[in-house]
């Protein structure tokens, strides 16, 4: 079970309190109607799936309830950092 540092609670908490939220920094367009079909497909379905550093979202569902972002190495599962939603990509 992973330990995940919640940037809001400012402590490491057990993984079972969290829910994974997929890749981070994929913002919903302000006006989706201006997106072409190809652009919309990219937004909906295309993810980077890297080997190594992955920017991803987690929610501390059974804790403070907040979504936040993390950088995790998909090979070692080591978290490099976690940071609050809305902060720039790290």
């Amino acid at each position, binding site marked *: *079970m*992973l330990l995940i540092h919640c940037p809001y609670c400012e402590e490491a908490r057990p993984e079972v309190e969290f829910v994974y939220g997929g890749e981070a920094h994929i913002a919903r367009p302000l006006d989706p*109607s201006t997106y072409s079909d190809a652009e919309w*497909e990219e937004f*909906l379905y295309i993810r980077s799936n890297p080997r190594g550093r992955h920017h991803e979202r987690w929610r501390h569902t059974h804790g403070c*309830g907040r979504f936040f972002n993390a950088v995790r190495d998909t090979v*070692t*599962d080591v978290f490099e950092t976690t940071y609050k*939603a*809305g902060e720039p990509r790290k």
Partner: protein
Amino acid sequence: MSGFRLADGGRVDRRTKRSFTFDGKAQWGYAGDSLASALLAQGQMLFGRSFKYHRPRGILGAGVEEPNALVTVDRGPGRVTPNLRAPSVPIYDGLHATSQNRFPSLKTDLLAVNNVFSAFFPAGFYNKTFMWPRGAWEKVYEPIIRRLAGLGDSPKTRDPDHYDATYAHCETLIVGAGPAGVAAALDAAAGGGRVILIDEQEEIGGGALSDPAQWGWLAEASAKLAAAGNVTVLSRTTAIGHYHQNFVVAAERLTDHLSLAEAEGPREKLWRIRAGEVVLAMGAIERPLVFEGNDVPGVMLASAARTFALRYGVAVGRKLVVMAVHDSGWRDALALQEAGVNIAAIVDLRRDIDPALAEAARAARIGCYTGYAVTKVTGRQAVTGVKIALDGVAKEQSLECDAVLMAGGWTPTVHLWSHAKGTLRWDEAWGAYLPDKSHENLRCVGACAVAWDFGSGLAIGALPAAKPLHESKAFVDFQNDVKARDIGLAVQEGFRSIEHIKRYTTNGMATDQGKTSNLNGLQIASDVLAKPVTEIGLTTFRPPYTPQSFGAMLGHHKEALFQPLRKTGIDDWAERKGAVYENVAQWRRARYFPLIGEDMDAAVARECLGVRSAVGIFDASTLGKIEVVGPDAAEFLNRMYTNPWKSLEPGRCRYGLLLGEHGFIIDDGVSARLAPDRFHLTTTTGGAARVLGMMEDYLQTEWSDLDVWLTSTTEQWAVIALQGPKAREVIAPLMEGIDLSAEAFPHMAVREGHICGVETRLFRVSFTGELGFEVNVPAQHGRMVWEAIWAEGQKHGVVPYGTETMHVLRAEKGFIIVGQDTDGTVTPDDAGLGWAVGKKKPDFVGKRSLARPDIVATGRKQLVGLLTDDPQAVLEEGAQIVADPNQPVPMTMIGHVTSSYHSATLGRSIAMALVAGGRDRMGETLHVPMPGGVISAKVVAPMFYDAEGSRLNG
């Protein structure tokens, strides 16, 4: 010496005898004996039959590495445990142990015929031979092979035991309580942090238990640890695995070492330990040597013989020969001789022996054969002697003996290190992989960090012999019966990576996970391929370190505690009324309320007619509820749902349809505006948590500028649905402060007031097509209000109904159930709910997807009604639909039945279905092929009752 028990020595309590049985025969030992030591003391050498060839097998090791002596322990019905290792089974009064994999008995095993034909059972034999005819593998070959080659029988009755589990936290966790582990624990304890020290054996001490010189120190250290306020010592506890961030799972055996009379409480306890630092002090396991006949009972590890003599006071034979390629064999031989075990000779392939050891052996009058190797062991069920030869090929001679000890060097136990993704490096001197780097706060001490002096030695695959490898019966993996020549064969057939060789030969794949065989297998493959070991690779260590019971994994999650079963406050009223339940998500819900003699169909028909003719009462408390509060509440809902919300007046309700961003329906529900800044949302029972999570996601990460908050109120409100023409009359006398008249309180309205003196949010809504109300009251009052309504309802013929009736009633009206009539690929238009999509809204979740080419394409599956030609035929939900019933198989399937019932109201069956281009097929006859014949049905609009909706407004 009585039997094989030495006159003195050992840690067993010679004043306390224990009686037990092995294969039904009465046996005894001393308190502190293992099953292996007690039986060896009686001269028992034969412990089991091998997996594949049914060769007689004895004890190889004195610990968890033991591959041969697997036994079944019977502690009564449901308490039969197979595949336990005899050296790790402590004896107690009344222990019943039996050997495995033999028929009819250990001494006379008819299946040993496999051994005679062993030349025909090489690696890959099964895969190559039992290929034909197709289908015979499952029905004929596999069952027979499984009977011939197998381990113990798996349990056939329910496990009556209970299991405990806990989380634990410490600053330092030490795995292994040998000298290095104990020292690390004392160190850590002095630091003041919480320390947990775990060890798999009956008592702590590890290797020190086999070295009387260390017993004084061990006793002192144990007392110190016990007295420390910050140290938890767990013996009989196996660290199963190391997981991320120093999360170590261990299983503690609480009662298996006790007689049935003494055993109380849970059988095992699962420790889920999070540690700041993990110290691995798991020691090392001695390697066997690979030579002809190395599996004859009586051939064992030198370290095992030492442990049996010095820890248990048992000689493993009366005349022993040691076959060593390592100094530790000489040391063990000397210690054994001193303890009174007769060592006839030491054979060592090396010519240069540490002079001190050679001198000590001479002084102890032990014959020494340097440069020699054992080339054959004589004897079948027991060792009678060995043949040895210079360099394995010359000057062959015979030595008489009744046991052979193997000293092949040491393999550090790096299992948990590897679980933690620690890297390994090959060490030539040790002939083993050693811990290298880890990104965890993890370190090794003692033998598993090679910080232990076993002396030096050779790392060798098979001993040299004149007999060619492919003719030899020299075993590498004892438990899976893999011989050196099988590895040779695998290489010959083209396998190069050890991962492939392992799977082809099954080397290292038995329940011992190759604790004694992996490195010998690697060395042999390396020799045959003429490549360095490091180029062949290393197989992966995976949890569990030793086999574990499923019970310990479950912990408390057994029977009624298996998982939470959510019940509403009205549930036990339903129970008293004889409700039949169904589980919906984690909830259990009353499905129908049968009267005496009624089956489900009869009960549901009666309940349906009761609702349509008078009034029904239904517990809808499980509906998901979310309170949406804040100045931007309406704006938020407008963005989430497909339809407009800003215009909804306080006091009114609206059906909301929720899409994913992909444009497909994921939830629906009726929601009410209580105040300009307060909404009461409802979701499906199963969708409550998912919908709340999705809404939080949008609110927190996309629209964090909105001032609105979501609070789950699913469990705040009990919901009592009253549906039917008499619904108003039933609740009217109980209501305070709400004008129930049709004019003042129209369909799809909400009012706040009181019922039975309790605050209520009263919804006028209908999921049945009848006049309906949903009474929301705080959950703690739900039962009281339900009973009051029930009592009042008696005057009006009220009938309680369950989810099955609810499903029929809504299907008669063509109302969908998300997840039943939709499957995650259904758009609002597909479901016939295009009216619920706000055409003028610039955006909402999923809107853009509704314009994607595939979504607007013709021919999509659409929800339609089906009326079978035979009005009494009820289609099966999930059944496939075809246009042409005469088309040869495979037929073109154009859709499937989503909902299907017998409607008592209509006196016939009704169904809903998703059919390609369904709305263009109105009036067409389609076909549903079933095993009993084809059922034909006409496509109709999914609305079977009161299409004009007049009953709603009663």
